[in-house]
């Protein structure tokens, strides 16, 4: 065993793993299991409440990524797909269900034993079915996926894909029992753009623009995780100055996104002045990003090997000024949140229990007491800068709002520290034309983002990005059940549900 973790101890039945063939999947090692061992690993993971971080496929194999219990490493495993079939993880690990539907739609691999293989991304409009398979099939007949013909006794409230004022394209169907939500069902895949196939065959540098456009408000986080995966696969390291600039970019993105979410929730809760204040502060930050990095959302600023360009002369000062404005506006925003109106509107809404939060990273997990933050152990660029995870206990919309406010404060401090200690030197390293497999991770404003890449002679052979949406949608569905219909918008927004990133 080599690499970042002592993989002998990863699963309860460590004999399985140790006997398996291991391949480099830097910074860790991936164990290629037999179908029986794959199923046994899933059972062991479920028995010990291991977190399934991601589940994906390529034309020949399926992969799963588990979080090591000490949270300092991730454990990739895989198994070959035999005659189009592999053992399903979902009977013991329910969070695998959406991934299994995605894998079936894109590659045609069928999860044997899965309870639900309804289409997820393939709405019957593509020119072929299983477009990522070695040999795509004729198209699936177009069917009305929005026709859920189950609970006909209840009133149904349907929103999307064209819904809300300005938002992402997703369908959410609330089945009502009087004023309460009986159950919530989501359907995504509308914004599926074929990102995995577009990345294939390109150099990491050329494919980075697709990683940057998975989800615009996490563009820096996705770009960093993608770059880290490419750098791990090709065994290069971004120069120290680039590493530190990435910290500045990611924390600035976090501040801007949290301000946007807080503004939106305050607007929905009727606190217009808080909303206007946060909106103005966000705009101030975005304008500083334009001056410092040449792009308001910092899109394409992070590239494999480092960052695209150094911070513009005078940009650091502009950024410091804007963040100073945020720092001086924060106490008033906090005061408004502690005030009875906003606090009582948000408390108790969309509550998730500690048990539900076990698999949830990001804000949702931390607001329910799970102190997991990828910056602490999984992003070496942070080192001693990594802040202690900001946690709350209540698990409701108010707790999520409180975590966001705490994190803005932490990020303001972090950007200041990183700017003060910015090392001199180059901002990018050249990528060799090599081959290899790697995994990268970043803590976005919503939660941990993971990218897996296999590079063959300098070109991407296979890729998978895991957006936090894969975790958040099932969690939001559970939190919506039992809530009042009138609170649905606030609950949705408090999870900051994304669509594009997980639609691929």
């Amino acid at each position, binding site marked *: 065993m080599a690499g970042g973790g002592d993989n002998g101890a990863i699963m309860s039945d460590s004999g399985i793993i140790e006997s398996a063939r291991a391949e480099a999947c830097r910074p860790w090692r991936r164990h290629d299991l037999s179908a029986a061992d794959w199923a046994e690993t899933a059972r062991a993971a479920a028995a010990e409440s291991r977190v399934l971080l991601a589940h994906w496929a390529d034309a020949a194999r399926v992969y799963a990524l588990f979080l090591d219990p000490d949270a300092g490493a991730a454990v990739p495993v895989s198994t070959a797909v035999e005659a189009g079939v592999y053992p399903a993880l979902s009977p013991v690990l329910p969070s695998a269900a959406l991934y299994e539907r995605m894998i079936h739609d894109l590659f045609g691999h069928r999860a044997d034993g899965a309870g639900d293989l309804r289409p997820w991304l393939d709405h019957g409009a593509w020119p072929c079915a299983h477009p990522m398979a070695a040999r795509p099939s004729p198209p699936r007949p177009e069917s009305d996926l929005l026709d859920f013909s189950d609970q006909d006794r209840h009133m149904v409230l349907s929103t999307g894909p*064209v819904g809300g004022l300005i938002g992402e394209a997703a369908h959410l169907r609330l089945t009502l029992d009087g004023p309460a939500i009986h159950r919530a069902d989501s359907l995504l895949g509308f914004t599926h753009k074929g990102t995995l196939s577009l990345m294939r065959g390109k150099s990491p540098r050329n494919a980075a623009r697709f990683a940057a456009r998975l989800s615009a408000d996490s563009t820096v986080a996705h770009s960093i995780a993608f770059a880290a995966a490419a750098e791990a696969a090709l065994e290069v390291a971004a120069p120290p100055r680039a590493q530190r600039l990435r910290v500045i970019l990611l924390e600035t993105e976090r501040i801007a996104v949290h301000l946007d979410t807080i503004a939106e929730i305050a607007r929905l809760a009727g606190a217009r002045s808080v909303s206007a204040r946060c*909106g103005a502060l966000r705009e101030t930050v975005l304008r500083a990003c334009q001056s410092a990095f040449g792009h*308001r959302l910092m899109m394409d600023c992070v590239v494999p090997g480092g960052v695209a360009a150094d911070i513009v002369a005078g940009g650091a000062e502009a950024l410091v000024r804007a963040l100073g404005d945020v720092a001086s506006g924060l106490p008033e925003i906090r005061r408004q949140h502690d005030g009875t109106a906003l606090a009582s509107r948000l408390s108790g809404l969309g509550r998730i229990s500690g048990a539900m939060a076990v698999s949830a990273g990001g804000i949702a997990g931390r607001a329910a007491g799970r102190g997991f933050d990828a910056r602490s152990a999984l992003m070496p660029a942070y080192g001693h800068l990594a802040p202690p995870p900001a946690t709350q206990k209540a698990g409701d919309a108010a707790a999520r709002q409180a975590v966001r406010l705490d994190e803005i404060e932490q990020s303001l401090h972090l950007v200041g520290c990183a700017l003060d200690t910015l090392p001199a030197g180059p901002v990018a390293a050249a990528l060799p034309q090599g081959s290899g497999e790697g995994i990268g991770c970043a803590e976005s404003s919503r939660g941990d983002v993971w990218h897996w890449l296999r590079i063959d002679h300098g070109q991407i052979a296979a890729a998978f990005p895991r957006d936090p949406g894969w975790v958040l949608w099932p969690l939001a569905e559970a939190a919506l059940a039992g809530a009042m219909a009138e609170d649905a918008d606030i609950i949705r927004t408090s999870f900051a549900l994304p669509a594009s990133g997980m639609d691929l």
Partner: protein
Amino acid sequence: MNQPPAEPAGAPDPETIASLSARLEAAARVRLGRSLAIRHVNTGSCNGCELELRALSNVFYDLERFGLRFVDSPRHADVLVVTGPLTRNLKTALEQAWDAAAEPKWVVAVGDCALDGGVFKGSYAVLGGTGLSVPVDLAISGCPPSPTRILSGLRALLEANAA
């Protein structure tokens, strides 16, 4: 019952009606016509254009002072603002939104993806730009276009509409 004392009135002078209505129409075009209801339709965006569309409502741009506002339904809209490459999965949604909007209506394609598919051109899941499905009146390029750019495009539409 007594008859009401009011006497039957003859028809008003048709010439007066015609001249009044012409004057009203001219005044209304200038005073009331300077307002557009906008419905946003996402046809597969990465959410970048949405972030900048939302920014239009912050106090720096204050979209509503120009008589521009976002509405909930395409039935209430004069303008459809379309973002994102046209994915195959959202083509029907765009066409339904376009059919639902009453004439006269305008379509504004916002962002490089809505122009021609942008970086997603050539994917099996993407058809291309908005124009492949509905007629586009105005295109605003950028990835994403800044709020200033979007606002200037929308105001041009407003001026053209009032002229």
